[in-house]
């Protein structure tokens, strides 16, 4: 639940989602669900030479399991708050 809540705070932010097949998609985070599936708007593929078939795509849904990384704008992340939430979550479970 921690990362679901975390991503909900990032809705509206510009992110880059890097997939396990090396495709990187930059876009605005529209929504996220409990599986960390992600919806992006205004997308742009960073390496269009390698992935020309994505050029006309404007928005997309990404299955959570194919994500390797999500690059985030650091200004949008309160690290102190995140660490507190992490400590709370990992002590509440036991």
């Amino acid at each position, binding site marked *: 639940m*921690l*990362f679901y809540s*975390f*991503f909900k705070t990032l809705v509206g932010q510009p992110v880059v989602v890097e997939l*396990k097949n090396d495709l990187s998609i930059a876009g605005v985070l529209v929504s996220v669900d409990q599986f*960390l599936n992600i919806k992006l708007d205004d997308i742009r593929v960073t390496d269009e030479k390698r992935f020309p078939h994505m050029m006309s795509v404007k928005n997309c849904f990404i299955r*959570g*399991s194919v*994500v*390797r*990384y*999500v*690059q*985030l*704008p*650091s200004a949008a*992340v309160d*690290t102190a708050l*995140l*660490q507190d*939430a*992490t*400590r709370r*979550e*990992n002590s509440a*479970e036991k």
Partner: protein
Amino acid sequence: MTDGAIAEPLDLVRLSLDERIYVKMRGDRELKGRLHAYDQHMNLVLSDVDETITVVDVNEETFEERIRTVKRSHEMMFVRGDGVILVSPPGRT
């Protein structure tokens, strides 16, 4: 206990919060960055990350293998846990 009670493996990761950690990933990738969040799947949030990707190039004619490393950096990133192999807290040999 020598360094805070480690009763289960995840405690090692908990004690590394706000520290620079080393992460070994699938696909010959390594990350070094400051840990801000984790969960039981090893999903992570890291900042000031240095990523090293090891690539093996094979020469098509001689079949010689050349090992090359690609470096990237990320100011803030989420790492999906299923790609994680190993996490090591900061140097303390």
